[in-house]
Structures are given as C-alpha cells and as structure tokens.
C-alpha cells in the first residue's frame, strides 16, 4: 500500500469512535421491545430529535467525497443539490406526511397495495429494496476507499469490518438506536465539517497575505466558481438543467416521498405537526449548513491550489480532494476525528437504510406471506436477521459499484434508474384519483422498458437534452431523468385513460383529496379540535382498560379534552425528546387534580420513573 495517510493517533481516534458509537447504540437497544419500537421508535419523538437524526441520514460518507470533488472542480455550485428541495414541501407536508402517518403505513410498498393492488406492492418492494441495498453498498465502498488509504487494509476486508461494526448496534436497537446514535453522529458531522472549514480558512490566512480567511477564500476563487448554480447546459458531467431534473425533481420527490428511511424517521415523530416541523427545519436550516459541511474541503482545496502553489499535489485526483485537504490542514488526531466523521456519515446513513430494508422485508414480504400469523417476538428476531442479510448482500454488491468510473456516477445511475417509475407511481397515486392499478404496474414495467431503450438508444433522449452535449458511450447522464420521468408518466396517464378506475370507496384516505378526513380515520371517531393547554401531573398505577388513562376533571378542563380523545404523555424533562412517553386515550375522569392513573404496562412502556412528574397534552 502506497501513500498511507495519517498517524497512529488518527487510527486510534477512528477506532475509539467506532467503539463509542457501537456501545451507545447497543445501550439504546433496551428501548426496542416490539416491532413498532424497532421500526418506528414507538412514534413518540420530538421534532428536534428527529431533525438532528435526519442530518446524519442525509449526509452519507459519499457526500463528503462527492461534493468536495465537485466543489474543487466547480466551486459554490456544488451546493445546488442541497438547496433545491423546497418546491415539493407543500405537497409533502400537507399531502403525503398526513397520509403515511395517520394510515400507520408500515412501509412505502404497503401504500402501493392499499392504493392499487398486491402486485403493485410486490414490484415496488423489489425496486425499493434494490435501491436501498445498492445505496448501502455505495456507502460501504466510499468509506472503505477512505479507510484503505489510512489503514492499508485490503478494500474488501475494510468493507466487511465496517459492515460488522454497524451490525452490532443495529442488531440490538433498531430505530431507537438509529435515532439516538444518529443524533450524536449528526452533531459530530456538522461540528467536524465546520471545524474543517474553520481550519481551512485559518490555513489560508497563515499562508497568504490576507487577514481574513473568508476574504482569502472569496478572492482565490474565479467568478464562475462563485456562482451558486452551475452553467445551464455544459459541461456534460456537471450542468444545471440535467442536475435540476435528476436531483431537483426526481431526487427531491424520491427523497421526500420514497425514501423509506426518511419516512420511518418522520413516522417516529410524536405527531404529524412535529414531523412537519422536523422536515421544514431540516430543509430550511440544516440542508444549507450541510451543503457547507460537505463541500468546504473542495472550496478550500481550490483556494489553496490557486494561492499556494505546491501545497497540494499537482496531479491531485478530484476524488482524493477531501482526504488530501483534510490531511493538509489538520494536525494529527484532528485528521483522525475528521475521518471519524466520515465514518459517522457512513454508519448513520447505512443504519437507517438497513433498518428501512429490514422493515420492508418484514412488512412487505414476510407478513403477507405468513398472513401475519407470526408473533411479534418472532418478527423482531427475523427483523434482526434481515438486517444482517441486507448487509451481506450489500457487501457482495461492492465490487460491482467499484467498477463505475466514480462514486458520483454510481450514485447518479441509481437515481436515474430506480426512482422515476416509483416517483411517478406514488405521485400520480396521491394526486390523481383516476390513476388505476393497471396503470401503476404498466408504469413500473413498460416505463422501465422504455428507460432501458433510452439508455440503449440515446437519440430517444436527445429531444429532452436542452442542448447538453452527447458523449458517445456515456450517454446524456443527468438529463436522462427527464426522459425517464416523461415516459413513465406518459405510460401511466395513457393506460389510466383506457382502464377502469378503482371504486372511490376503496381510495378513502389514500389520496390528497381525503387528507381532511384522516384524523377521523386515525382516531376512529370525531376529532376534538378545541385548543387546550398541557398539564403537569404525577402518575399512579391502576388497572384500566387497554390503552386508557384517567385524568382529573380539572386537568381535562385545562386540556379541553373529553373522554375518548387521544393524549400524549411524556416525562416532563423536555431534553429527553419524548424517549420516555406513551400515547393513550382519555378514560372517565376522576376528582383528584394533578394525578393521572395509568396501567403498569403503560408505565413500563413509557419507562416512567417513580416520583418524576409527567407532561400530558391532548392530541385530538
């Protein structure tokens, strides 16, 4: 192994990081008692907890390498893909999120069965699993490539070691472990990325005549590198219009509407409104910060290359920018910490996807095949085995992805191949009542066939090319997503017009047109929309009907609640973010103010501590 980077201290820091995260994740395994806990964390967490854990999911290890590369080559336009996700937020926040939350969907394919047919669910299951497992393989490959340069261990052995490390805490903890390890890793990722930026700016100040790092960075980039959006249609490997359709449209819809890992995160929120807050804060605040976190090594690298000749190798390969810049501007130990952040990115993204994949395997393959007869305990065991199986398959796929020219291309291939049919299927399903079961299957099958034709005969894509140069042997890359979306949507619309629509009674709650009815469907009775205030109470144990809790008349008056309404009760310490909490239904009130009667089972489920007060809020 040539050019091994880093010092022994760096290697120790990385190993220590792995050990800490595995221990942390395994600790939170005790909070997963059922499959609902394992996959959805019991639907109890506060928005801020969900938000920070989403950060770590959104930033993969490939992100640092991929965006630093583009930042080095093209400047600030590397941030484009992190700053074009707002356009579909209205439909997501008020259309899709209430549907998946209130219908208690276990997975995206389950939606396809309820909205269309079992056949549609099976095809969607296959496509989503392929997408997620391939994505995990890319994560393994990226991190292994970086660690290979530091430890000198053969690439595939590094991949296997990473897979084993992430399996340990995932195996025990499920979604709760994922959320809490991702919370820590989210902070580490942002801190490490911003630390790298700070050190880079200091490096520029120390080695140039500028007194301000930001000024040194700005002045050492060309005007074109300061533009936030890429050139409209050139060069072919990085142009605005292609990336807009591939990432801004197909990618954004795919990310918000089809990313099973992300959806499961929102479903772990304690309410739809908490999920909305998490999503909005993530896109408005966290994504712009994330764009700086993942790109800055490339910007700093370019400014160094322009202002300090010889500081970076003249033949520096773009894919090596992140590791080389980090190695140059950090001291021993700090470099290890930065690489540990890369590990954090990998572990947090892959654990989310592994958890999501095992959820799909249980919910969409095992349960339908066994007609849901297996006990919850058996399903939990199988979920853990499924997560191991997913990782084994992902490891086996690594050599295939290693054969692509770059990680950027491998990732782009995913988006353009797997997302358009699913994007069209779910989008038309939610927003067009007339869209039929036959049409969605045709979208998947015929759409996929037309997409393959487009790859074989690029002349089919050329009417959509917006003047992007065609590269023989490599096709149109990003803009192919527009062609794929058009053919899939075209097939869906045409087949719908020639087939009989599903009876509208079968679609209740499954389209955006019924969102206003979803709360009633969720609650099972009329919704009490009166606004009340939270109450602080102490609990006492009493045998009550399943899922019921009994508050005093006074406390129910403050909450504006009635018998049969839903209530959320949590440990009153806000910083737990809902970790210790339950959902319940108001039973007949009693006379003792400040007391809530709960069952022993609810107390165990909420992990409430004797003597500590609880905060209760009426949900609906």
């Amino acid at each position: 192994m040539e050019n091994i980077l880093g010092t022994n201290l760096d290697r120790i820091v990385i190993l220590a990081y792995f050990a800490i995260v595995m221990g942390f994740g395994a600790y939170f395994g005790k909070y997963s008692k059922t499959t609902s806990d394992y996959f959805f964390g019991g639907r109890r967490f506060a928005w801020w907890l969900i938000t920070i854990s989403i950060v770590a999911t959104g930033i993969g290890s490939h992100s640092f390498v991929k965006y630093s590369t583009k930042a080095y080559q093209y400047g600030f336009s590397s941030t484009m893909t992190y700053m074009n996700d707002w356009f579909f937020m209205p439909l997501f926040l008020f259309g899709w999120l209430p549907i998946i939350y209130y219908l208690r969907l276990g997975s995206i394919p389950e939606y396809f069965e309820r909205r269309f047919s079992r056949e549609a669910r099976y095809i969607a299951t296959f496509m989503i699993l392929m997408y997620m497992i391939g994505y995990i393989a890319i994560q393994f490959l990226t991190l292994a490539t970086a660690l290979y340069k530091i430890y000198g261990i053969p690439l595939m052995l590094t991949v296997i070691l990473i897979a084993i490390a992430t399996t340990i805490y995932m195996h025990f903890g499920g979604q709760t472990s994922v959320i809490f390890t991702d919370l820590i890793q989210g902070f580490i990722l942002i801190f490490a990325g911003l630390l790298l930026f700070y050190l880079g700016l200091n490096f520029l100040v120390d080695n140039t005549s500028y007194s301000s790092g930001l000024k040194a960075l700005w002045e050492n980039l060309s005007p074109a590198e300061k533009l936030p959006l890429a050139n409209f249609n050139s060069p072919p490997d990085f142009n605005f219009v292609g990336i807009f359709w591939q990432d801004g449209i197909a990618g954004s819809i795919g990310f918000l509407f089809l990313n099973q890992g992300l959806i499961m995160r929102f479903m772990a929120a304690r309410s739809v409104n908490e999920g909305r807050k998490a999503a909005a804060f993530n896109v408005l605040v966290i994504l712009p910060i994330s764009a700086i976190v993942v790109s800055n090594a490339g910007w700093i690298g370019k400014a160094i290359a322009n202002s300090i000749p010889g500081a970076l190798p003249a033949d520096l390969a773009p894919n090596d920018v992140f590791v080389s810049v980090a190695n140059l501007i950090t001291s021993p130990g700090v470099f290890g910490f930065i690489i540990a952040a890369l590990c954090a990115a990998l572990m947090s993204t892959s654990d989310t996807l592994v958890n999501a994949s095992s959820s799909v395997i249980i919910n969409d393959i095992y349960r339908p095949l066994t007609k849901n007869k297996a006990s919850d305990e058996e399903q939990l065991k199988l979920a853990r085995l499924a997560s191991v199986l997913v990782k084994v398959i992902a490891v086996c796929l690594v050599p295939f992805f290693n054969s692509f020219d770059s990680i950027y291309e491998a990732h782009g291939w995913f988006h353009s191949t797997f997302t358009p049919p699913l994007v069209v299927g779910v989008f038309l399903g939610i927003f067009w009542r007339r869209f039929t079961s036959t049409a969605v299957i045709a979208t998947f099958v015929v759409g996929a066939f037309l997409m393959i034709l487009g790859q074989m005969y690029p002349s089919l894509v050329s009417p959509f090319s917006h003047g992007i140069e065609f590269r023989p042997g490599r096709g149109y890359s990003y803009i192919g997503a527009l062609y794929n979306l058009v053919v899939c949507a075209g097939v869906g619309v045409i087949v719908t017009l020639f087939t009989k629509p599903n009876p509208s009674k079968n679609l209740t709650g499954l389209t955006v047109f019924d969102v206003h009815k979803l709360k009633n469907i969720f609650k099972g009775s009329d919704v009490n929309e009166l606004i009340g205030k939270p109450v602080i109470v102490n609990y006492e144990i009493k045998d009550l009907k399943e899922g019921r809790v009994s508050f005093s008349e006074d406390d129910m008056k403050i909450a504006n609640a009635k018998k049969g309404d839903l209530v959320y009760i949590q440990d009153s310490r806000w910083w737990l973010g809902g970790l210790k909490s339950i959902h319940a239904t108001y039973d007949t009130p009693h006379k003792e103010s400040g007391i809530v009667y709960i069952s022993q089972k609810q107390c165990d489920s909420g992990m409430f501590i004797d003597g500590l007060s609880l905060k209760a809020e009426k949900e609906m």
Partner: protein
Amino acid sequence: MSFYQTWLPFIYLYGIGGVSFLLGTFLIFRTGALRVNDPVHKKWVWVLFYGYFFYAFIHALFIYLAIESV
C-alpha cells in the same frame, strides 16, 4: 460571464420549481388539506412562502456578488 452561466439557471429553477410549488400549494388548499382558518395551518402558509423566497434570495445574492467580482 454569459446569461447561460448566471441568470438563466436561476430563472429556470424558480420558474419550473415555482410552478411546482404553486400547483402544490393550490392543490393542498383546494382539497382542504391546508386550512387557512386553522391558526396552526395559517403559520405554515407563511413558512411555505418564506422557504421559497429564502432560497431565491440566497441564490440571487450569490449570483449578483459573483457578477460584481468579475
């Protein structure tokens, strides 16, 4: 720097993206998924439009600064 490098991507992004945004907002409003008489939903209407103009402002500002630096 040419129009293809500077303002065309911006116009395309907020034009096509803006149509998607407005259609989505119109749809959730028409179907009753978003109710402006609900005080919680009313705040969300502001957040939705704030998000759109926030990103448009950031992008426009950097394009302007990049042009000025030529």
